[in-house]
């Protein structure tokens, strides 16, 4: 391959490259100017994300790997890039209010968010161990920084330390798994490994697969590796949690899908058992632990663990139907989770205040429209019709039943019932109880618009799911 073909292939990477340009511009502005520049940095970051989203829709797709077989720009990665960019846009919109009342705004976080999203975009496109490792670590390392970004609060620094130590421990174990995969096959390309790995020793292949999955399961926060989630979600600045709970998880699920389609495709029996077990444990653990939480952020942390468990049902019952179900669920989950955390930002006054369920009391009287939208979001998180959350769960359970995983579908339905109790506590506090405290009404228009937009999407995708489903199944990984 010569240089001219490398240049010709650059057009496939246009969204990532434009995002890199914007983040470097934001970085330079922040570095060479005084404090007032934060507005420009923020503006550059959000413009970059929107520009990248527009360019993404104009970028051609190719089902052949590019750059000597290290990157693939297919419909599957296209879909996930939409999720990351939307998540980034909503995160920065929520930052507006958060830093307005918290003060001490740090311009770094805006271009760090952009760099993290570039990392995720390359991660979902990578089909080579080296590309995958570098891009995965790009967003992983930036997320440790983002967790500790709110320097004046000890809890943010603490979240950063906890996330950092556990994160690099799990990624070192994942790297060992990658080294074994490479040693067994002598290849780094996913497709070549896929054909070479079945000739290798079965035990060693399974050990390397287990090591590999540790790093991924940690990022998704599945149960044996979920310890960091509640603490990190509680300590991290709330807008950053919006990013943490959606984009890196979606990226890791996408990588997991790609890996079980290529590298570990010969071991479906074994990983199906692992995924079944983990799905059940994760769902029950997440939902039961969420029942006893009083802090809404911690409650949502356990809720996000439980949702990862529902998605793992789709991975256990892997097939064409479950890929569509997983992708549908992930985009719906993005909007549900963003709206739930936007609610926390709306009532939050200082770090550590306004995070308890009691602080939501009487919200319906002050913001009737927001409270109504949040009810839609809560119904969707529980999985009740006519919302998109119901359709997502319906697809996932159908996929499980189709493959004969009846008990898994029953466990999932049972967990939806359990989750009703703690989501209902939020609704009850908003509508049935009265609060006395007044909220400051400054700069909530962005938060409001995020909540309203999310609930409109949830309702639309819940009542007319067929368009979204058709779109997803047309671009899903084959």
């Amino acid at each position, binding site marked *: 391959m010569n240089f001219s073909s490398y240049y010709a292939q650059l057009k496939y990477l246009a969204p990532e490259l434009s995002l890199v340009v914007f983040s470097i511009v934001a970085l330079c502005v922040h570095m060479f100017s005084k404090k007032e520049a934060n507005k420009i940095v923020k503006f550059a970051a959000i413009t970059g994300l929107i520009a990248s989203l527009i360019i993404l829709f104009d970028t051609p797709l190719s089902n052949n790997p590019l750059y000597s077989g290290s990157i693939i720009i297919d419909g599957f990665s296209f879909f996930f890039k939409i999720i990351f960019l939307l998540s980034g846009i909503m995160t920065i919109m929520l930052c507006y209010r958060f830093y307005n009342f918290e003060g001490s705004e740090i311009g770094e976080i805006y271009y760090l968010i952009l760099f993290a999203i570039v990392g995720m975009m390359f991660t979902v496109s990578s089909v080579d*161990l*080296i590309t995958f*490792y*570098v891009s995965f*670590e790009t967003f992983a*390392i930036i997320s*440790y*920084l983002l967790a*500790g970004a709110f*320097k004046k609060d*000890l*809890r943010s*620094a*603490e*979240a*950063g*330390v*906890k996330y*950092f*130590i556990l994160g*690099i*421990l799990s990624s*070192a174990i994942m*790297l*060992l798994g*990658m*080294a*074994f995969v*490479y*040693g067994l096959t*002598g*290849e*780094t390309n996913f497709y070549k490994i896929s054909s070479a790995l079945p000739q290798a020793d079965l035990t060693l292949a399974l050990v390397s697969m287990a090591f590999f999955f540790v790093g991924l399961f940690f990022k998704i926060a599945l149960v044996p590796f979920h310890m960091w989630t*509640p*603490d990190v979600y*509680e*300590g991290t600045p709330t807008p950053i949690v919006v990013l943490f709970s959606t984009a890196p998880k979606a990226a890791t699920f996408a990588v997991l899908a790609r890996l079980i389609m290529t590298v570990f495709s010969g071991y479906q029996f074994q990983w199906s058992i692992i995924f079944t077990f983990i799905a059940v444990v994760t769902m029950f653990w997440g939902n039961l632990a969420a029942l006893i939480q009083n*802090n809404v952020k*911690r409650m949502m942390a356990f809720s996000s663990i439980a949702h990862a468990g529902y998605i793992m049902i789709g991975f256990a019952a892997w097939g064409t139907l479950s890929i569509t179900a997983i992708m549908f669920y992930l985009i719906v989950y993005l909007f549900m989770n963003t709206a739930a955390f936007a609610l926390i930002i709306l009532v939050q006054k200082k770090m550590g205040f306004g995070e308890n369920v009691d602080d939501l009391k009487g919200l319906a009287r002050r913001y009737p429209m927001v409270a109504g939208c949040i009810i839609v979001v809560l119904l969707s998180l529980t999985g009740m019709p006519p919302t998109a959350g119901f359709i997502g769960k319906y697809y996932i359970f159908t996929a499980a039943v189709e493959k004969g995983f009846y008990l898994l579908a029953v466990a999932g339905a049972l967990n939806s019932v359990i989750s009703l109790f703690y989501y209902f506590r939020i609704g009850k506090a908003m509508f049935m109880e009265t609060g006395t405290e007044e909220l400051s009404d400054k700069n909530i228009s962005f938060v409001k618009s995020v909540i309203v937009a999310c609930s409109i999407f949830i309702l639309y995708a819940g009542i007319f799911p067929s368009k979204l489903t058709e779109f997803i199944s047309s671009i899903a990984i084959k």
Partner: protein
Amino acid sequence: MELTINHYLVLSAILFSIGTAGVLIRRTGIVILMSIELMLNAVNITLVAFSRYQQQVTGEILVFFVMAVAAAEAAVGLAILVVVYHHKKSVDVDEINSLRR
């Protein structure tokens, strides 16, 4: 005695285990960072050994990237520990427990 790939793998397994034990047992943030560096370097030995065994350089190229990532991780980790030190005047991870359990 001739050195085979097994010797290198055993060496790297021992180093990796020492690193893991260090992360789990030691309570000082700095030592935990060092232990993790040890784990990553153990993986590097594995990669170089496999690369030599397979008669190619791909694994060795991956090692360079791992080194770069390890350097980035050390920089970020030390930065976070400095922030914690400003609050607590200590980098003992057992004392970092203000978040509810």
